[in-house]
Each structure stands twice: as structure tokens, then as C-alpha cells.
């Protein structure tokens, strides 16, 4: 194991999959000559050439559709959205074409495509550039959605996504690109299955379910609560769809208390689905109502302290955990 950044981990995943399979290509805005808006594709043009690392005009609907068409005849495109906020311009392609094709064609055409890029609020980017899109896309049958929070998960999930025969969205955490973590050496194949959560910290008093940018928040809060004699178990979903509900139930069977901390909005957010499943499947194990911490239900303001007030931050999570622990 060695320590690398989330950005490097993604870069390694791309390079390894491009190297492994010539049907894989990377396309998007500024991915080639500019070396990536967030430098995730740095060096790939030099290594794989312009045939496989392809700059596009600002034309998300067009190049998302191009990727889907190429996937219909067996290529395995990786389409980068500079941010998933921009994927909304290509919503029709991502929602109406990619996941519907398999059903609509009676099983003749699966779409082995990966859509990837940063997702979720970053820092003071205001309303149009701060979308957490996971709940939009997870509600669409035929799509798979994953949300890596660590360099190891970023590498392993992206590689798995590229090899999947269905459309997969890899929603990267914009704020975590420079974060560091331990990852297997490059000569060791790292594949992390979609639909498998991971216990990021063990605990016995309360379960905190989190993903993407809420994982570091949850870990920080868990460390803090330890000092107050509250032992929190932190479960990183890693994939939103398929959802590893058994990992959640297993932890609740032990702790009997749970808080879901999500980076999207509360109305029809990821937490709503998880709460429904918890009460349906493991109601009798609960010692307290399930709580959710999410963004406030408002468009994202630019002002820094207001942005903080909107986000699912540590203070809100601590309050929620104490509430379910009656502490």
C-alpha cells in the first residue's frame, strides 16, 4: 500500500482501463490538451494519443449521446462531465437513452458506458454549480450510481464501472480530489464491486450512514463523539444503486440507532429511501426514530456562512446523533 490522492487514484484507474482494453476511450471537455479541468486526466493524452483521449466542444447533450451511440456497437466510452451540474444539460441522454435502451430494444442493446465527474457542492460555487445529482439519477431504472469517498474506493469503483456492461455513473467528490489515502500498488489489480458498502469505522452505540462528501464529516464526528463516550459506527455506502441495504440492517441490529447523513436535498433524497427500507425491514430493532441530516431545502447560496448553514455539516450531525442516543 502507498498513499496517493483521490485525483491520482482516478487517474490510475483511467490509465489502467485504457491500457487493458482498446475499446475504452475518454471523452469530455478539456480532458485532453488542458489535461482535465481538475487534472484527473493529466498525462493521458500524451500516453494514449488523441484518438482515445478526446476533447469536445461545450456540448454535453451531444457528446453524452455520442458515447451512448458508440456503446451500442460495443465500444466502452468514459464520458467526463466537467461537473455533474452540467450533466443536467444532457439529462435526456443520460436518463432517456442510456438506461432505456436495453428494455426498449427487447434486450438487444446494453449500454456499457461510464459517466464520471465531480458531483455535489464544492466551495462557494453557488446554485448552478453545486448540484448533488445522486438522487435524480438513482431514481432511474437501468442506471447504476456510485459515490466514492476515498482514493482506494475511487480507483476500485471507477475500474469496475468501466468494465460493467450497463450505464454507470461515477459521482466523484469535488472537495476530495486532493485528499489522500492508502491504495494498493499499481501492479495489484484493484476492483471494488458496485453495491457493496464498507464499514469505515466500527462502533456500538449508533450507526451513521454516509457517502461521498459526508464520509469525512461522519468520521470526524465519530472521533469527536468517542471523547463523549458515544461509539458511532460509520457505514460508507460507496454505491447508491445498487444499495447495500444488508450492510445497513446488519449495523442497526447491533446499534439500534441510526442517522443518515446525505449530501443531497431532503425532499425525495437518498435518506428518504434508506429510512423507508429501515422501518420496513428492521423496525423492531430500533430504539429511536431514524434521523436524517441533509442539505437545507433551498438553492445553494454563494455567501460562505450561508453555504455552511445549508450543508449537512458536523454540528448538525452531532446534534442528530445525540438526539437518537438520547444523550
Amino acid at each position: 500500500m502507498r498513499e496517493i490522492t483521490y485525483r491520482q487514484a482516478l487517474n490510475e484507474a483511467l490509465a489502467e482501463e485504457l491500457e487493458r482494453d482498446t475499446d475504452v476511450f475518454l471523452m469530455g471537455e478539456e480532458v485532453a490538451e488542458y489535461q482535465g479541468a481538475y487534472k484527473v486526466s493529466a498525462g493521458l493524452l500524451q500516453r494514449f494519443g488523441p484518438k482515445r483521449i478526446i476533447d469536445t466542444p461545450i456540448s454535453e447533450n451531444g457528446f453524452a449521446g455520442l458515447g451512448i451511440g458508440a456503446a451500442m456497437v460495443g465500444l466502452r466510452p468514459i464520458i467526463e462531465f466537467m461537473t455533474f451540474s452540467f450533466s443536467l444539460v444532457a439529462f435526456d441522454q443520460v436518463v432517456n437513452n442510456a438506461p432505456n435502451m436495453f428494455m426498449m430494444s427487447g434486450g438487444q442493446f446494453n449500454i456499457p458506458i461510464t459517466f464520471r465527474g465531480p458531483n455535489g457542492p464544492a466551495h462557494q460555487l453557488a446554485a448552478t454549480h453545486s448540484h448533488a445529482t445522486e438522487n435524480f439519477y438513482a431514481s432511474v431504472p437501468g442506471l447504476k450510481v456510485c459515490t466514492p469517498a476515498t482514493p482506494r474506493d475511487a480507483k476500485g469503483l471507477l475500474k469496475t464501472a468501466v468494465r460493467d456492461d450497463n450505464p454507470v455513473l461515477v459521482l466523484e467528490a469535488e472537495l476530495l480530489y486532493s485528499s489522500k489515502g492508502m491504495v494498493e500498488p499499481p501492479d495489484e489489480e484493484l476492483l471494488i464491486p458496485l453495491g457493496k458498502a464498507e464499514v469505515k469505522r466500527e462502533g456500538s452505540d449508533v450507526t451513521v450512514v454516509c457517502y461521498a462528501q459526508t464520509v469525512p464529516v461522519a468520521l470526524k464526528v465519530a472521533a469527536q463523539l468517542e471523547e463523549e463516550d458515544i461509539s458511532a459506527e460509520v457505514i460508507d455506502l460507496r454505491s447508491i444503486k445498487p444499495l447495500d441495504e444488508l450492510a445497513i440492517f446488519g449495523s442497526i441490529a447491533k446499534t439500534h440507532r441510526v442517522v443518515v447523513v446525505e449530501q443531497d436535498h431532503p425532499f425525495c433524497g437518498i435518506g428518504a429511501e434508506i429510512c423507508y427500507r429501515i422501518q420496513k425491514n428492521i423496525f423492531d430493532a430500533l430504539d429511536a426514530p431514524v434521523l436524517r441530516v441533509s442539505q437545507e431545502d433551498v438553492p445553494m447560496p454563494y455567501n460562505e456562512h450561508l453555504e455552511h448553514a445549508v450543508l449537512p455539516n458536523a454540528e448538525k450531525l452531532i446534534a442528530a446523533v445525540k438526539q437518537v442516543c438520547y444523550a
Partner: protein
Amino acid sequence: MQPVEQRDEVEMLSLMLLIRRFEERASQQYQAQKIGGFCHLYIGQEAVVTGAIAAVRSDDYVITAYRDHGHALARGTSANACMAELFGKKTGCSRGLGGSMHFFDKKHHLYGGHAIVAAHVPLAVGLAFAIKYRGEDRVTLCFFGDGAINQGSFHEALNLAALYRLPIIFICENNLFAMGTSVKRSTSLKQIVDRAEGYDIPGEIVDGMNFREVRDKVAEVADSIRKESHPAFLEVRTYRYRGHSMSDPASYRTKQELEKYRLDDPIIRLRAQLTREGKLTNEQFDQLDKRAKETVLASVKFAEESPELPAEELYDYVYFDGAKP
């Protein structure tokens, strides 16, 4: 499927008849409520797809919009599989899961059947991208209506095809109406073909009621593309005799206008050309028509007798690996 020179024109006339008779029968079955959803008929436009398909190879890629029955039949999908799809049966070309607007046939390189106006034009560019990526000499035929040319995805797709010099023929089937809105009321251009010029794509106007003209023009363009990859645009002027869909009485146009086009009917026209040249007798034509009608009647019987997919198999068509999130 033979390339253009070898494909017999009588056979192509027979294909046009098959499409015509299929659509007439589909209309009747729709009225009898054997067919659900939306149903858009191709009657009047037969020479466009027949001419274009006659000009290309069987391994070239074809993709179109929702008025797609003729495209599937021309590509080689059986009348049985087409009718069964309209009936929602398991034996349909999309197993009864797509319906009228979503005909797919992988074996015959038909990539749909797409029902969001112009949303398939970027897909077509992706098919062409794959051809160039793999260094093949195929061509993609992308059909769409005049209603598609004001959508953003159409413009983005044309720009990408031109930027990357992709092997694709954009075939605009200009039947003068996007649903009930005439081209004059929807498009700020003197002629649709001028859209291509905006993207530096060579474009031409073709008489879509004339099988030979469509075939020869598509053949010429496809030939040029196979020599050196590039996009091309054809505005093929045609006319649909029926309304936009089954529920449309087409009151936005006059009887006189329809009659004018009916006199220029593509089937009558090719028949007259062949008769004049001594390649077809009246008896032979009647024989072809009889055969087309019989094929279509048999397809109705086939569709009626075919099974439906059971509900237990629904989830087999969501993810390729059968994952159930």
C-alpha cells in the same frame, strides 16, 4: 443484401409495396384496438427509405426516429416481427417492449426507432464515431424528420460529426409538417438543407418521391464517404399521406395539397418507369401487390397467435447482468 448496382428495382418496388400494405393493415389493426400507444404511419414516404437502403451495404448502420416501420422492413426485419412488435408480443423485433416507436434489429444493423425528437441524432454520431475509431469503411444513415432540425441535440450532433469528420449521412425526411406545424411556421430558413452549411457539411436536396433519385444520390454520397470519411446532409422532400399519428385528422392541410402529392406517388412512379422500360408487366405488378398483401395478412395472424412476455421476466430487461437494486 446486395449493393446498389445489383439490387433489382422490381424487388425494391416490391419492398415499397410491402411497406405500404403493412402500414394500411397496421392502421386497420390500430382502429380495431389490437395495437396500443402511438402509431405513426410511413405511407407516402416509401421511396426515401427504400432508395437509401438500396444504396448501402447490409452492414452499414441505420438509425431513425419514431416513424420507423418502413425502416425496419426495408432493412430486412420480417413483417411478422414488425407486426408482432405492434401487437406487443414476445416475437416482436423488440420483444413487445418497445412498440411502434422503438423498433430495433441488431442482426440487420437497425439501431432504433427513437421517440424523443432529435435525441437519436447524437447516437447516430456515436455509431459513426465507432466506425472511424475502428477504421472500418461502413457508413451510418441517420434518418429524422423536419421537426428535428430545431432541437439542440441536432445542432450539437452536426457540429460534432463535422469536427471529427465522421462517416454519416444525415437524411432529413422533409414531409413538410412536424406534427401539425409546417416547416414555414417552425424554421427560419428558406430551405432545410441550409442547416448543413452552418456546420460546413455538404448538403443537397433530393426528390423523395423518386426512388431512383434517392438511391443514386445516397449511393454517390456513401461512395465518397467510404473513400474519405466525412459527414453529408440530404434534405429529401417527401410527403406523408396520413396524419402525424393515428389520432391526427390532419386538418392543417387541404385536400388539394394531399391530392397533388398522391399524383406523384412513389410507387406509381417507379412502376411507370419500369413498365415504360419493359421491365415490368401489369400482371407482374398485380402479382407483387398480391404477395405483399398476403405477407402482411400472414403477419397479423402470426402476431395474434404469438405469446406475450410474462411479468416475471420484467427485471431481465433492466440490467444486462440481471442486477436488481
